């Protein structure tokens, strides 16, 4: 799929992966998280430092927003003290007691992003984080990413929409006929 590719990301950096449909962004992100084995090449990134957001939101219809966030924060060793603050930042405070099954597409995505923010992981891998978000929510996401990078974290996002992340590095994936080697450190 993806060939002739080498990537090196420094702490504090945000990286936006662009590329036409079918260029292998999803595949690359999953490989970086250790969720698929790369066909060729190698990836030097500890899966235990990764917070991953795929196309799906991983929300259970019967759980409330607050229950879901609290559970994952606890499992990933995140700081439960900041739960309320993160919910407010992602405009979820008024939905805290709603079950996830009744949320709209954008509300679900915001909840999934709040989970990432609460994960206490340094590398965020986000596949199309903003597709269903409205303008204000995208700003909220950008603020989150800015804070994370300022604290020395790494954010890698695949997207087709403008994320509006000032200062982010942009990498355009285009098929080229050589070997893959993606290293993140």
């Amino acid at each position, binding site marked *: 799929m993806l060939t002739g590719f080498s990537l090196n990301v420094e702490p504090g950096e945000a990286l936006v992966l662009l590329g036409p449909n079918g260029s292998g962004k999803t595949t690359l992100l999953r490989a970086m*998280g*250790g*969720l*698929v*084995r790369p066909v060729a090449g190698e990836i030097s990134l500890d*899966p*235990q430092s*990764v*917070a*991953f957001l*795929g*196309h*799906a*939101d*991983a*929300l*259970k*219809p*019967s*759980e409330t927003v607050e*229950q879901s966030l609290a*559970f*994952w924060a*606890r*499992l*990933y*060793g995140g700081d439960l003290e900041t739960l309320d603050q993160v919910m407010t930042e992602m405009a979820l405070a008024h939905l805290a007691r709603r079950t996830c099954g009744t949320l709209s597409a954008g509300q679900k995505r915001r909840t999934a992003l709040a989970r990432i923010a609460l994960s206490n992981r340094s590398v965020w891998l986000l596949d199309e984080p903003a597709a269903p978000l409205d303008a204000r929510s995208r700003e909220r996401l950008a603020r989150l990413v800015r804070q994370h990078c300022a604290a020395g974290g790494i954010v890698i996002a695949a997207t087709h929409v403008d994320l509006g992340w000032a200062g982010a590095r942009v990498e355009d994936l285009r098929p080229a006929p050589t070997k893959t080697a993606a290293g993140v450190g």
Partner: protein
Amino acid sequence: MSALGAIFTRELRLAFAGGGGPAGPAAFNLAALALAPLAIGPDADTLQAAGPGVIAFAALLATLQPAERIFSEDASDGTLELYALSPVGLALSLFMKTLAFILAVFWTTPLLAFIGGLAYGMDVGSAFVLALGLAFAAPGLAFIAAFAGALAAGLKRAGLLIALIAAPLQVPLLVFAAGAGRAAMDGTGLEGPNLMMALAGSLAALALAPFGAAAALKARLE
């Protein structure tokens, strides 16, 4: 609360809230018990002779039914990835999940076996032995079903695949549980060994199945 405890309580909650706890499988078990005599016919001797077998068989079928859902949802909604990347890891997470699920869902099995035994004309003592046999066998049956569920997660016709994968592995447990009930009913005195074997098989399944399930799901992620 530890991370493992958090997974356990969460999955317990999900099993009760989203799936209704034991209501579904219990109702299925009951339906199977009620339908079988309609098919077999009302002859009391035939029913009594077939009783322990039919009851154990119904319990087995009830474990197969929810197996498809245990992991396929987690596979399609992205939860599996999150568990895999968590500090606890996939195998342990799934072990806790399955344990919680089985506790939430299958505690009614021995109860139903007891009532079913009486309904099929067994005496109270034999019905109790049969219920004990299923209390021993049910966790093992459920763990094997969960393993099959992991192999089939997210595939088309997963339910059928599960039946085909799990059924052969469940045979020994089925034979011993039903055998205990039949032995008690026929007075052959062999209920003790049968019960022991059911317990041993169950423990073996409990020890092995989670690793198989984790391996299967890990393969799916990659």
